[in-house]
């Protein structure tokens, strides 16, 4: 291009010059607004950080409160009490100690005597009743079991680790405020004083709370455990897994590999997607109306719970399994068909093994959902008070989340810690299941 001659009029240069002044003005305008715009930018970014912070803070609060309350339930308070079971208390009319006579003996009496021996100056019926209240009924059962297992101990002094009643357990853990007026707390001054005396005599000890993990439910907090609910959850999930995995995989294989594209399969697909979003309590209503009323299956049974949860988890498993099948590249199918395999052989020999990790991951996630589910099980009566450990899927049972619900509703304060402890156990199971799913996914993750 020819160099500019300064004096000649060049229209292009004039336009360019005009453009430059406009541009300079624009640059100034842009510049003047920049500070405000960057402030807005920073503000917006702060909103995001604050939102995430709030969400995480909620999560932390939830865990902290539950753990802070729950850990105290993992220990329990016992009194190391010297107890003597006198022969005449447990012997039959002939003066012999037999299995029968032990079964009919009242072991509460030696327990009370042992307590009275600690506090000889307590007289009067009501005072004595207050004194006896220190020990849990579990102490009597423990004594009974010891003597039954070893009748030799009759007549000797035994050092029994006697569990205390829940209120005294709380007292020992420092969760009872003794400064409030006597009438407003569950323990009177005498009881507090006696317990402190026992503590001074170094008879009070803290132990790992095995009862919590081995017992069924109980009205008395110190005797209540989650084992019954854990077993109930196990049977329920067993039924769910046994039904939902094969059905879910079969349905996914059909829809993904065989189903023709038509109205009917569209309907199935829409159905599956919608079922995944139906409120869980509606499944409970279905279970109540169909399984209990029409088929007359027993209430409170893990079998029915498993059936209801199967219907609930099926959409999850089908959707995950279809995704897993989709991720298997078509070249593998073509290769199998190319060597003369039938369609079903191609699927069972080649596609399914490759898709299996994805399907298992989906199934585990579905099982984790089922394990945490409460509402539909309330509908089919799994909310009953069940003391016995269920022996099979037809026995009345409750499940872990329902047990949590029941305990959370109990008025006794001692159940608060136990509820939190049960929640910790439930969360631990969920963490294990989800970790399993993550490991499975990581291990078999395949990039085609």
């Amino acid at each position, binding site marked *: *291009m020819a*160099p500019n001659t300064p004096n000649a009029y060049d229209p*292009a240069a004039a*336009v*360019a010059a005009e*453009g*430059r002044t*406009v*541009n300079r003005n*624009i*640059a100034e*305008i*842009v*510049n*003047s*607004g*920049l500070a405000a*715009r960057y402030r807005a930018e920073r503000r917006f970014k702060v909103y995001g950080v604050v939102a995430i912070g709030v969400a995480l803070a909620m999560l932390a609060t939830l865990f902290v409160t539950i753990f802070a309350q729950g850990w105290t339930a993992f220990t329990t308070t016992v009194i190391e009490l010297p107890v003597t079971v006198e022969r005449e208390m447990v012997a039959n009319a002939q003066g012999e100690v037999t299995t029968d006579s032990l079964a009919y003996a009242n072991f509460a009496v030696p327990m009370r005597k042992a307590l009275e021996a600690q506090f000889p100056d307590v007289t009067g019926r009501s005072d004595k009743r207050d004194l006896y209240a220190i020990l849990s009924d579990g102490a009597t059962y423990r004594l009974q079991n010891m003597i039954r297992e070893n009748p030799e101990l009759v007549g000797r002094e035994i050092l029994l680790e006697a569990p205390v009643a829940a209120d005294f357990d709380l007292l020992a853990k420092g969760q009872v405020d003794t400064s409030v007026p006597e009438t407003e707390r569950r323990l009177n001054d005498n009881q507090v004083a006696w317990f402190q005396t026992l503590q001074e005599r170094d008879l009070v000890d803290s132990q790992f709370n095995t009862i919590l993990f081995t017992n069924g439910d109980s009205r008395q907090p110190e005797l209540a455990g989650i084992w019954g609910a854990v077993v109930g959850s196990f049977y329920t999930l067993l039924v769910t897994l046994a039904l939902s995995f094969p059905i879910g995989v079969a349905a996914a294989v059909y829809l993904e590999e065989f189903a023709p594209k038509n109205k009917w399969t569209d309907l199935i697909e829409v159905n599956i997607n919608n079922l995944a979003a139906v409120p869980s309590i509606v499944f409970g209503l279905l279970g109540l109306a169909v399984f209990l009323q029409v088929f007359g299956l027993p209430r409170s049974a893990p079998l029915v719970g498993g059936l209801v949860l199967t219907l609930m988890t099926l959409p999850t498993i089908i959707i995950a399994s279809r995704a897993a099948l989709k991720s298997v590249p078509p070249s593998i199918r073509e290769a199998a068909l190319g060597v003369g395999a039938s369609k079903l052989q191609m699927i069972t020999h080649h596609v399914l093994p490759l898709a299996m990790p994805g399907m298992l991951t989906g199934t585990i996630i579905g099982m984790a959902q089922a394990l945490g589910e409460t509402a539909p099980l309330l509908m089919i009566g799994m909310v009953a008070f069940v003391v016995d450990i269920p022996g099979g899927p037809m026995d009345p049972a409750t499940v872990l989340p329902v047990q949590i619900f029941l305990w959370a509703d109990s008025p006794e304060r001692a159940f608060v810690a136990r509820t939190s402890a049960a929640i910790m156990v439930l969360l631990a199971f969920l963490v294990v299941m989800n970790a399993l799913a993550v490991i499975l996914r990581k291990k078999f993750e395949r990039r085609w």
Partner: protein
Amino acid sequence: MNSQATAAQVQTEAPAPQGTAGTPLVGPGEQAKVSARNANVYYGDKHAIKDVGLDIKQNEVTAFIGPSGCGKSTFLRCLNRMNDTIDIARVTGLITLDGEDIYAKRVDPVQLRARVGMVFQKPNPFPKSIFENIAYGPRIHGIARHKDELEEIVMTSLERAGLLGEVKDRLDQPGTGLSGGQQQRLCIARAIAVHPEVILMDEPCSALDPIATAKIEELIDELRQNYTIVIVTHSMQQAARVSQRTAFFHLGNLVECGDTEQIFTNPQHRLTQGYITGRFG
């Protein structure tokens, strides 16, 4: 990332840059609108642009040509710091606009992009009305003081982009409803509305049919009067039709640059010759 060189140093160094492609496009005494010295771009470990030095003159159309993957688009995106939006991209060397290092700390990418506008390969109108599409830039930069001024800017921009006649009755319709060629002109109008000094065009016609392409090319030629335009194209004919200067890239290197006529009639480099005559590309 930012070159240590100051703008003043560029002035003194500018006449004799070194490197694989040190030939300045601009003769002595002429001021380059945009210039690059020893520019390198890395995508992670990949060295995408190698030591490119180049000057772009005001009110001219400069075309970047070369086989696909040669780095011409990458280099274009350096000129308004669009590479900043890619996490792994890293730019070294010196790139200046009006003698000012655009990668210097105090230069604001937002302000820079207001001065150096961009039109993309695929037309990307926002899912808003035609009016809102064009008003977007002036609005965010606060260019219009009141509604009338905003309307005026929109109208002028549409007019300059040669789109006003086609859309003036349906300014409130979504921009995504236009044809491909119209969408691309809408995007050009959108860029013009901010009154940029330089417009970068990244293969603006590659998604369009020949008639739409012709219209855009015409438009580019008109816009040259007011703006400095850099266009990346995969079509040599297009480069020959619209540009005054052409730069040929190959494998991240700037092989040759000069007057379009000279590049197409009398290429100096063996590679350029090969590409122009269609031996590869």
